[in-house]
């Protein structure tokens, strides 16, 4: 019995450790005070106003949306095509290519950032949206590859053979069978790519100019230089978005599972 109580206490405390910080920051988004401490004197939406109407924050949000959308499009197209290509077992160096595709997840962001800045400076792409989108795509694309590869691995190859035997040409098989079945994987890959871009700070520090300051970058310097409850308001939006994204991913996965 004491074993059971110990286990329960340990599990509860760890859950508290994991989740409490995320919950603690939420009410501060609605404080009327200028400092980020409890107790909250009175409730107000002023920090959300700040977030959406103060120039620096508003531009950061817009930049994040532009760069996030660009990254999502580029990473999803490149990653989905590559995952489809990787299906072929006859490709030489298949394992090496797959490792290369996943490696950007492993390489420390600062290292990649240094190299990226040197390289993009050579192309004249620093301080440009294109440069930031390219940098974000490098770190976002592994998520798309993993997600789409997973969805494709779940497709019974004989389903595609059956479609052929029933009279569908290879392009029709792809359009009517392969793509619809891979779609949940493509969608969750796209969501993960967007989330990666939204949260990316380090590469942005290296390659973005003042005009490409993203929300994450703005939060970083805000914490570093003059922390204000606008951070909490931004965090509130992030956590809300996370929960929505998580629901989308979970739902699309369960849709995928249901079809089997």
């Amino acid at each position, binding site marked *: 019995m004491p074993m059971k109580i110990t286990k329960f206490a340990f599990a509860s405390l760890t859950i508290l450790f994991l989740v409490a910080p995320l919950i603690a920051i939420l009410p501060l988004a609605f404080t009327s005070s200028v400092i980020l401490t409890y107790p909250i004197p009175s409730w107000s939406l002023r920090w959300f106003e700040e977030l959406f109407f103060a120039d620096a924050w508003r531009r950061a949000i817009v930049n994040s949306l532009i760069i996030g959308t660009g990254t999502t499009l580029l990473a999803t197209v490149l990653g989905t095509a590559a995952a489809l290509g990787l299906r072929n077992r006859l490709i030489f160096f298949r394992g090496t290519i797959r490792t290369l595709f996943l490696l950007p997840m492993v390489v420390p962001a600062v290292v990649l950032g240094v190299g990226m800045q040197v390289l993009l400076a050579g192309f004249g792409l620093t301080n440009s949206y294109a440069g930031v989108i390219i940098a974000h795509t490098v770190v976002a694309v592994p998520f798309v590859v993993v997600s789409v590869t997973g969805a494709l691995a779940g497709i019974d190859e004989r389903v595609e053979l*059956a479609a052929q*035997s*029933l009279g*569908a040409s290879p392009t029709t098989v792809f359009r009517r069978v392969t793509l619809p079945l891979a779609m949940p994987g493509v969608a969750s890959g796209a969501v993960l790519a967007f989330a990666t871009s939204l949260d990316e700070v380090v590469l942005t520090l290296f390659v973005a100019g003042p005009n490409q300051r993203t929300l994450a970058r703005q939060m970083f310097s805000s914490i570093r230089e003059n922390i204000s409850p606008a951070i909490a308001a931004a965090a509130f939006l992030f956590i809300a978005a996370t929960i929505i994204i998580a629901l989308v991913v979970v739902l699309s996965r369960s849709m995928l599972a249901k*079809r089997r």
Partner: protein
Amino acid sequence: MPEFIRFDRITKFYGPLCVVENLDLGIVKGEFVSLLGPSGSGKTTLLMMLAGFEQPTSGNILLEGTAINAVPTHKRDMGVVFQSYALFPHMSVGENVAFPLQMRGVGKAEIEKRVARALDMVQLSALAERRPSQLSGGQQQRVALSRALVFEPRVVLMDEPLGALDKQLREQMQLDIRDLHRRLGLTIVFVTHDQSEALTMSDRVAVFNKGKIEQIGTPRQVYDEPATRFVAEFIGETNLVEGVVEAVEGAEANVRLTSGAQIVSAVSGTVAPGQTVYLSIRPERVDLTEIRGDARNCLETEVTDSVYQGDHLRVQLQNAAYPLIAKLGRRSREFPPGTKVYAAFSAGDCRVIAP
């Protein structure tokens, strides 16, 4: 009858591995042919080549006299049924069955009519709106069947279609498919490793071993007149006894067993006196008597074990040189171990096989 499908000296290599070797096979229109053999014997590969999923390394596949090697799968007009059913998980049952008709540009109203008819044929009309994942295995297999038949293909290919079903359902489906074959006059090529399934359903059975056809014939031929030791052992159960041919007279041969006993046996193929051969004796053709009767072949044996198996009595016997098995009808009397009996069988129930 003219040949409808012809495999003309087909060979298939996977890298260094030869899975089909110089194989010839002809199939006539309306015929139900089973390709029977253990896994890895090349039967599925042959079917995959006929469907166009694989290309033969050498040789031609002819359909009504024209080579179809270069015709891609989607233009071959063959309905394929897979063991895993291979239904489109993202389409309803009705959409699955409509798919081949859409591919052929059939009009909407016509599609509706034909889908309804095809589902009706397999008694699934009520489930047209369901997703495949909501159906049982047997229902999914019937959808796959109606999807493969709805566009009236020239040939229907089935790759172990009943392998995933339980025994009772499998036997029901065997009869259903046989019935469809007769009613619609389909040409069916059916791959299976289940010998009783092949015997039940087929007009002809081709027995595969190591990339070659060992024997092709009606179910009765391959069972009663096995041409090779492999066929005798793979189809049903048999007693194989070694002996030396003493004389050949027409379709019968005299064989001396190692125990010295003389056996008269039917012969298929050619054997010469002095040759070492096997005799195949089906256990259910062996009679046991306590006194030497007037049967042409009679071996002195002793019962070592007997097991009651419901529909028959299985008796293990030991002759001077080799064990034998006899299956007796359920009305037979018991034979306790140690009983001395004679195992008797006619010359026609025994077959000489060249090794």
